[in-house]
């Protein structure tokens, strides 16, 4: 795989330099670690997100007003170190506490938890919401074991808006946890992404094969099948999603069609057409649709569909203004 990089060991650092050069008006770099925080911090509960890099524009792309206050950035597909998380949290904490929001992966849990322990000694209060939106990654009985994928966006959006409104750490955490519980996602992979350091694709798929439910690091999904028409594929994914979410015609959702890297917006909109048709048929209300590349896996081919089941509280936070380099509302 050809990549526009220099030394593979330097990709994260050089990316960060490039990001800071483009966004020095709204970002500040946290010294000594791979962390970025908002330039102008407010006296409110802080929201910190993070994870491995390689999923750009997540997670740095949602650092901004009404969203996250800071981001801890790991190496490619590797959770950030505890000290990175720690320094970012210390920088954004106004004394009102810090909420960690990240996808539920062993590495992220281990590192954020260790950071939380260390922060206790420094009197920084933290809470955690692990995003677990990927419905195929564990059965319902082990919902808390599920992986976090593009649904991160919904949870961070709600958390950021709640924090902006001046809620307490406990309250922001509770509503973010609710947002996570109301978020259902499913993905599909067409082709792999490549880790810059190894130059190797993270998995292999035959020329006419796809994998339903595959995770954003190439974690196995529910089934390998032949490539099929977009409508049929969307049908299969939506069936699983509606089955898991138990949405009915009383419900209203926000939809996110998230591209994984090399799948075009053209394809994503063809998928969106079918998703909307299916929701319309079931009488499920569509409050908003967002078709974008938020959570990528390098140049991986495929996409995910996420649904956020809204109630009045979540809807108000979803609709609140937000302004980050790669998310604006």
């Amino acid at each position, binding site marked *: 795989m050809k990549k526009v990089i220099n030394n593979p060991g330097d990709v994260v650092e050089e990316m960060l330099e490039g990001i800071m050069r483009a966004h020095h008006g709204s970002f500040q770099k946290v010294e000594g670690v791979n962390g970025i925080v908002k330039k102008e911090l407010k006296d409110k509960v802080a929201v910190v997100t993070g994870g491995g890099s390689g999923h750009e524009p997540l997670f740095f792309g949602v650092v901004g007003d009404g969203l996250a206050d800071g981001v801890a950035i790991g190496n490619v597909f590797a959770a950030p*170190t505890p000290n990175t998380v720690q320094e970012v949290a210390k920088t954004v904490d106004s004394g009102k506490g810090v909420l960690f929001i990240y996808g539920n992966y*062993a590495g992220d849990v281990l590192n954020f938890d*260790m950071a939380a322990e260390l922060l206790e000694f420094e009197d920084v209060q933290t809470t955690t919401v692990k995003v677990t939106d990927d419905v195929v990654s564990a059965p319902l009985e082990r919902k808390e074991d599920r992986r976090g994928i593009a649904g991160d966006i919904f949870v961070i959006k709600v958390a950021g808006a709640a924090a902006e409104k001046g809620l307490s750490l406990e309250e922001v955490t509770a509503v973010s946890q609710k947002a996570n519980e109301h978020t259902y996602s499913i993905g599909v992979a067409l082709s792999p992404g490549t880790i810059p350091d190894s130059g*190797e694709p993270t998995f292999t798929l035959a020329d006419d094969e796809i994998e339903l439910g595959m995770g954003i*690091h190439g974690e*196995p999904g529910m089934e390998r099948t032949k490539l099929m028409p977009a409508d049929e594929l969307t049908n299969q994914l939506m069936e699983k999603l509606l089955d898991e979410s138990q949405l009915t015609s009383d419900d209203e959702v926000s939809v996110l069609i998230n591209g994984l890297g090399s799948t075009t917006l053209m394809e994503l909109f063809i998928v969106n057409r079918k998703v909307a048709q299916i929701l319309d048929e079931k009488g499920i209300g569509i409050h908003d649709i967002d078709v974008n590349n938020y959570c990528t896996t390098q140049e991986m081919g495929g996409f995910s569909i996420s649904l956020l089941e809204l109630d009045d509280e979540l809807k108000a936070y979803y609709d609140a203004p937000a302004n980050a380099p790669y998310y604006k509302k």
Partner: protein
Amino acid sequence: MTATDVKKLDAAQTKAMILYAGEKIRENKPLLTKVDSAIGDGDHGIGMSVGFEKVEENLKDQEFTTINDIFKKTGMSMVQSMGGASGVIFGTMFLGGVKDLDSKSELDVPVLSEIFSASLDAIKQRGKASLGDKTMIDALEPAVNGLKESVTDSATLLEALKKAEENAADGVEKSKNYIAKFGRAKSLGERALGNQDAGATSVWIIFKSMREWVEQLNK
């Protein structure tokens, strides 16, 4: 004195042994990456290399008087540079063992055994995995058991490390038949069968290289 007789290492030797293990891990980066690709996200070799590069950087030019400091610095270097699951887990493999250990200037079989038993406990507490969950514990726990037996048998350092290495290797083999519960492979279920765990492979390489280093001592 041949290696077979060696009963203990001083701090400088301990440092050299750990640096040698780091070299071997870095040599095996492609293997570790390949193993992690099959059922994980393919970055384990990269992370371990980053960690042991930092270890080398931090240990190389420094003189140590205690074993504790060497293990602590090794662990801290890994935790602070690697990230990922293995940053904390392998960091803890070195940090956790000396956290409550009295100051030691020499590494003998009892100390070695005490260190790695304590780190096994620390890892289990941190990561909540147990033997059979397809993690590095599948290699570390049998290795630690080997060390404990060696204490009872009053074995030499080489004998103890040989036993630990063999048990670790056996654990790696067995990890092929376990169903993954932790790490990025956690939702692979039965499909991970037949593939060994990446972290377990690293544990085996670490014990193997410690054995090699002691074996070549004063040969």
